[in-house]
């Protein structure tokens, strides 16, 4: 699915990713944990194609294609989804209209006709309900005056509507209370299947109790310093980042 080799990336001359290797297969859930400033968001933005990064070295293969050949929207329509750490507010754009536009962009990319209005209404209603998002919310402007938790749920709603092959969740758990955390995790778990993959970025082991990862990686100073299974997350919780990085 996604194969990152020896990735070196800098911003404004400052080196952020420093020889990062990561390989994610179909059907796998990988957790990426690391301290603030270790380069987690940089990795997710860079993979999504955000502007302003300089890649010095490395390669990224996405489903047999060179990811770097694809524009931001092409990557998205080819199934790469980023749940933003800080989702953007779009004033004047109704949430449901935005969702429909996104769905239709993807359908167009795949040569499908626009979604039928009734079908869309049903789809959005059921998906929103599962995430405990009120219909009222869908009529409001996208993310404008949403609480932190509501924004994160909105990201997961978009993810489930777009049904991506490769989802990156950037600290989706931060700012969520325990109920929201459970709802969001259930949303992710429902999407999990043998054909899609997840990269779950988090600070805390807490989330991983709900979304059980197949692999856990620890990132420090822009590279992965240790990889393991779920037990690594538990070990990390016990010892802290510094200790773990040292033993790497």
């Amino acid at each position, binding site marked *: 699915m996604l194969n990152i080799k020896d990735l070196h990336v800098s911003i404004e001359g400052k080196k952020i990713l420093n020889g990062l290797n990561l390989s994610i297969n179909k059907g796998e859930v990988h957790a990426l944990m690391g301290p603030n400033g270790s380069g987690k968001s940089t990795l997710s933005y860079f993979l999504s194609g955000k502007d302003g990064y300089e890649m010095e070295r490395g390669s990224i293969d996405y489903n047999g294609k060179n990811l770097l050949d694809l524009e931001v929207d092409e990557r*998205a329509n080819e199934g790469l989804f980023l749940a933003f750490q800080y989702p953007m507010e779009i004033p004047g754009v109704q949430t449901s209209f935005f969702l429909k536009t996104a769905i239709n962009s993807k359908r167009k990319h795949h040569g499908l006709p626009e979604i039928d209005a009734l079908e869309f209404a049903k789809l959005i209603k059921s998906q929103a309900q599962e995430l405990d998002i009120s219909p009222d919310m869908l009529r409001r402007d996208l993310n404008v005056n949403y609480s932190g938790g509501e924004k994160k749920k909105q990201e997961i709603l978009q993810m489930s509507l777009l049904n991506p092959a490769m989802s990156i969740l950037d600290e989706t758990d931060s700012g969520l209370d325990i109920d929201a955390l459970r709802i969001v995790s259930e949303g992710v778990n429902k999407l999990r299947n043998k054909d899609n993959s997840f990269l779950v970025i988090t600070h805390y082991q807490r989330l991983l109790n709900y979304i059980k990862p197949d692999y856990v990686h620890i990132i420090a100073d822009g590279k992965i310093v240790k990889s393991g299974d779920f037990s690594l997350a538990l070990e990390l919780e016990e010892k802290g980042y510094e200790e773990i990085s040292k033993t790497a």
Partner: protein
Amino acid sequence: MAATEQTIKQVNKLGNSDYKYGFSTDVDDIKPPKGLNEDIVKYISAQKNEPEWMLDWRLKAFSVFNKMPKPDWAKLDIPDIDFQDYYYYSSPKSLKDKPKSLDEIDPEILKTYEKLGIPIKEQEKLAGVAVDVVFDSVSVATTYKKQLSELGIIFCSISEATKNHPELVKKYLGSVIPIADHSFAALNSAVFTDGSFVYIPEGVRCPVELSTYFRINAMNTGQFERTLIIADKNSYVSYLEGCTAPMRDESQLHAANVELVTLENAEIKYSTVQNWYPGDSEGKGGIYNFVTKRGACRGNNSKISWTQVETGSAITWKYPSCILQGDNSKGEFYSVAITNNRQQADTGTKMIHIGKNTSSKIISKGISAGKANNTYRGLVNIQSKASNSRNFTQCDSLLIGNECGAHTVPYIESSNSDSMVEHEATTSKINEEQLFYCMQRGLNSEDAVGLIVNGFCKEVLQHLPMEFAVEAQKLVAISLEGSVG
């Protein structure tokens, strides 16, 4: 590539080939020679079989025009206009004998309207919109006339009104925009060719949106429409105006005058979507649009509301205004102005508060891309007798790229201490993070820009009638797209 950078590139690609409405119809024109003189004024009047009083009015206007300087205070780079180099009257030949029904209309003309997306026949069937179409200078077809006339509503061309309702025309024509107001007003009064006339009688709420599509077809024709709308006591009407012109290398001149009058408790809602040919990416060709639109709230508790979406023309010079004479009268101005490439727009409004407890609201959204310049120029004038009056003004500018400009020029004059004027203005660049977010959800950069700009304009667009709003949203996106695909 940065999304904005990409947008700028696409925007720059906008050559004249991208103007969707740039086709011209092959019909034989009847034209007098080029040029502006007393004979042309007489010719126009004679072509229209006008009564003596109308010809006199035109000639008076023409002599006023000759004595006036051109207005020069707008922040526009206006090339010298050679008034002798235009045709002042053009009428498709087959309309010499005015058609009695749509079936008699030259199929070429009907095709033009179809390309414009306004199949008259469809619209006739589609309930809700009565259309008065102006093709160059002659009103081609007026639909819905019968249903409207049963309510006593008069909706016809101004030429017809001059003949059939002279008392109304004499009373109101030039009563809001005096001949001597400024040179383009005088010019229009002298050589106006056609336009719409609406009269809503006392107590009648017009059940449909009245609509006019203007289109400039013949080459080098100055189009001078004259529109007059009167809402008698306790009446209401919503009026829509749409404009398109084919592309030409030479610039065309357009100087319309629109006058609105509301009597006691009456309301007029006037909406415009203007997408005249803006010229090519170097600024060649395109329409010079010098429009005077003014409404008078003559009666107490009356209301006039202007909503405009301006995306076309090489030069736009336009300030739909309200004269709030009646006590408690209200004026509103909602505007979206988009300029791209080398377009120049200088637009805004004038709110003149004369009556007591009058209020006005101005919401202006200016979007500039390419090398375009966009100026909001607004006057709020509160006179000494307008006690307890209010104005609220909000002007927001959005810039796409680094080479365009936005300017906000508010003039506030208050001679009344218990009145209140509020002005808010913002200028921002299109947000890269928002563009990235939208594109991460699969929208291409053009769609992302369109979506964000439409969101920016929502406060204005939501004042358009439903069927118009959808069209306007598409137009907003198209005019910034530059090139699709």
